[in-house]
């Protein structure tokens, strides 16, 4: 019968073993930043991917985008977690990296790749992402700046936060610019017939824009009030090919992808997958906000492959509101809900969590499709902010396995499990230290140095034929381990403090949520480990 504390640690360790390594995400980002070709994804452990990892790591160290001490600290989380952390930050478009300046012509470095990656996401880059900064880069940036009505430098940095960039667009253009027209040659007859309700769409536009605007008069006369065969398709063809309209189509696709509703290619081609993603999004938000927004409110099929989309309504309605000041984050609020739930409900919740974890682990892998990268958006900051809007319902959705919200929950809980994996590792590490000792050993040939750290700070070292090089290596190892220990103990302290205050709520799921909460809080406060 294992000791109860040992039981907790082994249960934590077995949870830890169930987390997959973040290799698919790392490989996807390496392709996105041009370190590896898309076809290398077929060989995740292959030479090309290995080379890409090394090249990225070297560029990261030389980039000046992150403090050296921070990089050094983050390396202690293990190579995979280190790479994942920085690749995700670089490819993040919720709260991404702000570039200190544009690269110089001819330069090819991390900043150049980041510029090309963002242009590529927005459909403004045709060349390889690893091209040097040159005329094409400037042209892409100027097009982006024209859309954003700002300088190229401002525009590329605004793509670090797509939401804010969208707000800027909404404020800079007349509202009618956001009534988007697109041609979808590959959409199915089924989608078309389900979405063929242009009269309702037109009536809704009348309510939104007022009957007397020239824009609406024109649409009523030439599109909505006509029989399908007499619709002015030349107008639709012209509008659908206009630069800003096409840019908005891409932006909408990016928004849908970012929120996990769309997992197809980012190709500015709104086919069945994209159309379905709109329907799914509306269903999810209807359930979350307890509304009954109809699909015809913002999307209609007009005939001859043409659709019209009310992006103004869609972007404004589902914009993330500012985070309410003083509100606890999603995981902290959920921790309290879990703790207060009865035993049977917690038991079902735990089973659902296991199911979510399994499904997230088997999530679709990034792959090459039609020469493009079929990718997953891994950022969750926007999602976490959105989740605050309906945090009170999340616990119930998990328990009831609500179909409309399951994709959303998978994306949301991916963040939970990532934090849990790191938090558990810190928790186990810290508690093991508190249980008595930490041994650091450095060996080289017959040379060896062993140091034993005890909880109260006592240290004993024994050296066997240790040369000055072995001593140096041992001291480096000791500093690294103490850095980790410092972090781990802070995480343990945060967790124990919460537990002390909520001992009556204690249960296994509550402990897991407390670990996530503790790890997130310490990570946010711990800019970097102690500087040696």
């Amino acid at each position, binding site marked *: 019968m294992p000791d109860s504390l040992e*039981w907790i640690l082994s249960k934590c360790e077995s949870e830890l073993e169930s987390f997959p390594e973040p290799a698919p995400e790392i490989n996807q980002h390496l392709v996105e930043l041009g370190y590896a070709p898309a076809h290398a994804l077929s060989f995740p452990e292959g030479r090309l991917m290995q080379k890409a990892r090394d090249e990225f790591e070297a560029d990261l160290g030389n980039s000046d985008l992150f403090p050296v001490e921070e990089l050094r600290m983050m390396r202690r989380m293990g190579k995979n977690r280190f790479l994942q952390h920085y690749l995700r930050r670089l490819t993040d478009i919720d709260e991404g990296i702000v570039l200190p300046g544009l690269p110089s012509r001819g330069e090819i470095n991390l900043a150049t790749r980041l510029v090309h990656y963002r242009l590529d996401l927005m459909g403004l880059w045709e060349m390889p992402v690893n091209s040097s900064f040159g005329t094409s880069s400037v042209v892409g940036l100027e097009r982006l700046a024209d859309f954003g009505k700002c300088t190229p430098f401002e525009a590329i940095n605004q793509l670090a936060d797509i939401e804010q960039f969208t707000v800027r667009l909404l404020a800079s253009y007349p509202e009618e610019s956001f009534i988007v027209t697109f041609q979808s040659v590959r959409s199915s007859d089924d989608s078309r017939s389900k979405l063929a309700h242009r009269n309702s769409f037109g009536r809704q536009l009348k309510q939104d824009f007022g009957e007397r605007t020239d824009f609406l008069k024109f649409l009523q006369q030439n599109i909505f009030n006509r029989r399908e065969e007499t619709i002015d398709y030349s107008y639709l063809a012209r509008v659908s090919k206009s630069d800003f309209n096409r840019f908005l189509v891409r932006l909408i696709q990016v928004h849908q992808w970012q929120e996990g509703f769309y997992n197809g290619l980012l190709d500015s081609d709104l086919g069945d997958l994209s159309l379905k993603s709109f329907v799914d999004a509306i269903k999810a938000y209807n359930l979350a906000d307890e509304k009954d927004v109809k699909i015809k409110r913002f999307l209609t099929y007009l005939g001859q492959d043409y659709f019209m989309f009310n992006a103004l309504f869609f972007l404004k309605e589902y914009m993330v509101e500012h985070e309410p000041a003083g509100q606890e984050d999603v995981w902290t609020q959920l921790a309290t809900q879990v703790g207060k739930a009865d035993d049977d409900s917690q038991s079902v919740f735990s089973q659902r969590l296991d199911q979510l974890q399994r499904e997230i682990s088997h999530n679709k892998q990034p792959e090459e499709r039609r020469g493009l990268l079929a990718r997953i958006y891994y950022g969750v900051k926007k999602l976490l902010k959105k989740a605050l809007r309906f945090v009170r319902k999340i616990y119930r959705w998990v328990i009831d396995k609500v179909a409309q919200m399951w994709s959303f929950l998978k994306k949301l809980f991916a963040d939970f499990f990532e934090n849990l994996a790191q938090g558990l590792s810190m928790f186990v590490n810290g508690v093991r230290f508190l249980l008595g000792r930490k041994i650091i050993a450095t*060996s080289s040939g017959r040379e060896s140095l*062993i140091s034993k750290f005890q909880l109260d700070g006592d240290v004993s070292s*024994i050296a066997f*034929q240790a040369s000055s090089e072995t*001593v140096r290596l041992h001291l480096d190892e000791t500093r690294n381990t103490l850095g980790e*220990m410092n972090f781990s103990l802070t995480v343990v302290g945060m967790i124990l*403090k919460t537990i002390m205050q909520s001992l009556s709520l204690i*249960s296994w799921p509550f*402990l897991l949520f407390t670990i996530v909460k503790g790890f997130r809080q310490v990570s946010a406060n711990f800019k970097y480990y102690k500087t040696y």
Partner: protein
Amino acid sequence: MATEVNNEGKEKLKSGLGKLFQKIGQGIEDAASLEVTTFTGSFEYKVSDVVKNGVDKVQIENVLKNLTVQNDSKLELVAFTSVKIDSDVSTIVKKDLSQADEELLKLHKDMITSAKESRQAFIKLVTDLISPAK
């Protein structure tokens, strides 16, 4: 059934966490003084005793255990430092240090710094625990 399983788990959790709090309490008593000891030895061992698949803690533990029970192991004290809570520091250093011992003395000095940091991390944990929630 689920309730029974949950209750058992909750009891174990409470008991385990209770033990952890006790352990921290014991650590507070011992943290009043700090002892750093550095030895050099010519203990015969095989590399596989210490290193297996990288570094295996259990193996190292065994080596340390063997060292304490085998009186014939030649183990020499290079330095010993005691730091009391009132900052009184006592240090004993081996006579006639060889060049290799000089390196170990440097190690010893660094280990005093590390020991202080380690204790500091523990004290911070304790103060975090007892300070009011923000």
